[in-house]
C-alpha cells in the first residue's frame, strides 16, 4: 500500500483525522521506553541527543536504562547536515518514522493508510499557511484528552516570517538552483560532496532556506531555546516531522523539473563509507538504506498529493501522469562534476560578532587579467560569486547572522541573513562535529553586479556581519570570510 502525504491544513480546520491519529500515536510512542527502538525518544535520538541535557530537561531520568553504546554509536546522532546526504538521509528517516507511527495508528484502531502530513508554509494562496498549525498548540484533543502534538517546548514565533531577530523571510529561492551538487564554496540545491557528515559546512540551498530558517523561527534564538533550535532536541517536537515532510516535498517537486540535475554518482547513491544510514523498522529491527533507494522507483520514494502548491514548481513535466510522484523523475540524473570553483580571496582575521556590526575586508588575491578587466569594465561574465563564512562557532544552539557587502567607497548591498542551526553542537570539540563549526555560503552574484553597476571596485570587498538578535554573552566567532567564483553553466 502506498501512503500519500497530504497538507496538514486540510480544509482549514484545526483538527482533521490525520492529526488526531498522529497525536494519539505520539502519545503511544512516548509511553515506550527509550530502549524500544520504536519509541518517541529513540526516534528523536537518531537525529541527535545530548544525554546529559535530556536528563536535565526531564526528557530522561538518570535511572532510565538506555540502549548499549555499541548500538547507539551506529544509530544515534546520525542526522546529516551540511552535506549532499542531507536530503536522502532525512527522506529515509521520515520513511522509518512514518511507518512506525502508521503502525501505531493502526494498532490504535486508526486507518491503514495514515501518512505523515506536510506543513505547506510557503503556500501563497493560504494566508494562514505560515502559522504554526493550531493542532500543534492546543492543550487537548477534541475529546478532551491531552494533546501530545503540543508536548514540546517552543520559544519562537507562532507565525513564520521575518522579525527583528531573524531579518530574513523563508522563500522558495532554492527551487531555482539547477544543480544538486555544488563545487567547494558554492551554493547548489542539495549540498556539497562530503563523507558521513553529522554537521558539515557544505549545506545546499534547500537546507539553508527554508529548512534552517524554519527551525530557528519555531525554536527561537534566545534562551530558553525551543527544541526546534537544537539538533539534539529538534525531533522531539512533533512539528519537526511535518516541517521535514515539506522539505522533502520540495525536493520531490524539484525532481519533477526537467531543468534539475540530480546527483547520480555511485559515491552519492551508495552513501558514505564506514558508518552508514541505519533506521529501525516497524518491528524495531534495524535496517539500512542508501540514498539511491530514496529516489524514484526506490522503496523509500514518498508520495505527495500535491507537488505544485507552495513548491515553486509551476507545472509538471511532460509525461507526468498525476500530481503524485508516481512517475519517473524528469530531472536529469548525472554524475558529472559541477563547474570548478576558485577562491578569489579571504579576510585575514577571525571576527567576533555580537549585536553590533563587525567589518572585515576581503583582499582579492587571485585577479587574473581577464577577471580584472571584467571587474574594472563592469562587463559581467556569466560568472557566479559566493561569500563563504567559515568556521562559525558559538555557544548558543542556533543563531542568525546578517551579512552585507560593499566595495571601497561604494554602496552597501544586502547579501543575506543566514540561520545557524546547530551552532553549539558544531562548535563542541569533543562532539560529533569535531569542533569544525558551521559554514554558510551566500550567493552574492546580484550584490556584486549591483556594486559594479554603481561603479564600485571589487578588489577590496568590505563585509559587515551582525547578529540582530544577540544577547549578552552570545557572541559568534567567524574564523574566515572568503570570496569564491564559479563559471556559470
Amino acid at each position, binding site marked *: 500500500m502506498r501512503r500519500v502525504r497530504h497538507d496538514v491544513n486540510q480544509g482549514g480546520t484545526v483538527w482533521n483525522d490525520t492529526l488526531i491519529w498522529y497525536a494519539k500515536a505520539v502519545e503511544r510512542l512516548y509511553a515506550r521506553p527509550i530502549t524500544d527502538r520504536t519509541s518517541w525518544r529513540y526516534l528523536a535520538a537518531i537525529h541527535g541527543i545530548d544525554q546529559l541535557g535530556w536528563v536535565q530537561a526531564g526528557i530522561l531520568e538518570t535511572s532510565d536504562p538506555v540502549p548499549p553504546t555499541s548500538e547507539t554509536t551506529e544509530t544515534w546522532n546520525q542526522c546529516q547536515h551540511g552535506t549532499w546526504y542531507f536530503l536522502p538521509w532525512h527522506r529515509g528517516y521520515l520513511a522509518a518514522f512514518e511507518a512506525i507511527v502508521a503502525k501505531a495508528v493502526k494498532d490504535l484502531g486508526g486507518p491503514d493508510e495514515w501518512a505523515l502530513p506536510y506543513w505547506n508554509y510557503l503556500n501563497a494562496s493560504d494566508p494562514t499557511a505560515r502559522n504554526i498549525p493550531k493542532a500543534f498548540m492546543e492543550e487537548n484533543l477534541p475529546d478532551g484528552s491531552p494533546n501530545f502534538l503540543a508536548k514540546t517546548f517552543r520559544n519562537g514565533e507562532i507565525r513564520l516570517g521575518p522579525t527583528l531577530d531573524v531579518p530574513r523571510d523563508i522563500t522558495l529561492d532554492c527551487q531555482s538552483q539547477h544543480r544538486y551538487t555544488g563545487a567547494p564554496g558554492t551554493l547548489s540545491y542539495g549540498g556539497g*560532496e562530503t563523507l558521513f557528515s553529522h554537521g558539515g559546512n557544505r549545506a545546499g540551498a534547500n537546507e539553508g532556506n527554508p529548512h534552517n530558517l524554519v527551525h530557528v523561527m519555531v525554536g527561537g534564538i534566545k534562551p530558553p531555546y525551543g527544541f526546534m533550535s537544537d539538533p539534539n532536541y529538534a525531533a522531539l517536537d512533533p512539528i519537526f516531522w511535518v516541517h521535514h515532510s515539506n522539505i522533502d516535498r520540495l525536493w520531490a517537486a524539484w525532481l519533477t523539473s526537467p531543468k534539475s540535475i540530480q546527483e547520480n554518482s555511485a559515491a552519492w547513491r551508495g552513501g558514505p*563509507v*564506514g558508518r552508514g544510514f541505519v533506521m529501525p523498522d516497524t518491528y524495531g529491527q534495524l535496517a539500512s538504506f542508501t540514498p539511491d533507494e530514496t529516489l524514484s522507483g526506490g522503496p*523509500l520514494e514518498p508520495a505527495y498529493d500535491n507537488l505544485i502548491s507552495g513548491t515553486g514548481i509551476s507545472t509538471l513535466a511532460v509525461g507526468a501522469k498525476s500530481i503524485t510522484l508516481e512517475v519517473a523523475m524528469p530531472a536529469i540524473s548525472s554524475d558529472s562534476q559541477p563547474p570548478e570553483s576558485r577562491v*578569489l580571496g579571504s579576510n*585575514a582575521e577571525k571576527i567576533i560578532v555580537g549585536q553590533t556590526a563587525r567589518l572585515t575586508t576581503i583582499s582579492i588575491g587571485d585577479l587574473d587579467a581577464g577577471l580584472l578587466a571584467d571587474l574594472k569594465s563592469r562587463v559581467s561574465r556569466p560568472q557566479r560569486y559566493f561569500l563563504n563564512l567559515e*568556521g562559525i562557532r558559538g555557544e548558543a544552539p542556533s543563531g542568525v547572522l546578517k551579512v552585507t557587502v560593499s566595495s571601497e567607497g561604494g554602496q552597501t548591498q544586502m547579501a543575506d541573513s543566514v540561520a545557524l542551526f546547530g551552532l553549539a553542537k558544531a562548535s563542541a570539540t569533543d562532539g*560529533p562535529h*569535531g569542533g569544525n563549526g558551521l559554514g554558510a555560503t551566500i550567493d552574492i552574484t546580484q550584490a556584486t553586479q549591483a556594486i559594479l553597476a554603481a561603479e564600485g571596485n571589487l578588489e577590496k570587498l568590505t563585509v559587515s556581519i551582525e547578529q540582530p538578535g544577540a544577547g549578552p554573552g552570545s557572541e559568534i566567532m567567524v574564523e574566515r570570510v572568503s570570496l569564491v567564483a564559479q563559471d556559470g553553466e
Partner: protein
Amino acid sequence: MYSLVRELRTKPAPSLMALSAAGFTILAITSPPDAPGFSLCGSLSSVTRADLHLLVPDGRTLSILTVAWLVMVAAMMPLLIVQQVRHVMQSSIARRSNIAALLFLAGYGLIWMVAGLAMIPIAAVIHAFGSPSIAIIAVAIAFVWSASPVGGWAHNACHRLYSVAASGPTANQDCLVHGVRTGMACTVACWPWMIMSFGFPVALHLSAMATATVVLFFERLGPTLKPAWRMPYVFRLVFRGKPHRSLGRP
C-alpha cells in the same frame, strides 16, 4: 565503498598515496641486510641490548636514524591527512595551493621529527628486547591507546580543520601552524602504532608497518565522538553487526 574510492581519486589523495608508496618502496629496497641506511628497521637491525647505551650519544647513528624516521613517517602518515591537505589547498587562491600544501606538510613533518627524538630510542629498546610476547604487547598497547579517552580526544583533534588565509602575509604562517597542530594531534593518536612494528622480527617489520598504516587509515575514517573508552573504530567497522535488512523492502 564508492565514496571511499572517489575520495582516494580526488586531489590531493593520489599525490599523498604516491608519497606513501615512495616511502614504502625505499623501506623495502633498503631492508636489511642490503642497505640499512634509509630504513629504521635496517638501522636498528644490529642493535642489541648491549648497544643501547651507545645509541643516543652516537651522532652518526642519530643522523641515519633521523633520515630513516622521516622515511617511515612519509610511508605511514600521508593517507591520514588527505582532508587537511585538501582543506588548505582549497582554502588558498589557485596559484598558492601547492605552496599551502607544502607548508602544511612541513609543519606536520616537523612535529613528527621532534616526536622521533623520544620515539626512536623507544623503538630501539623494543627492538632490542624483541620477542613474540613483546610484539603482542606492543600491538595490544596500540589498540588500547586507540580505545582510550586520550586516543579518542586525539582522534577528534586530528579531524579539526583550521582556517587559513587565501593569500597575503598570514597565509604561509596559517598553513604551517595548521600542519603543526594536526601533527601534534596525529602524534598523540598514532605514536604506539608507529613503534609497535619494532616488537616484531626484522623480517616482519615492513609487513607490520603496512598493516599499521591500513589500520590507522580506517581508524581515521571513524567519526569524531565524545572521548570515552570505546572499541577502536577499525574493530567496530569489521565486527559491527551491520543490519541485513534493507529499510522499506519486505
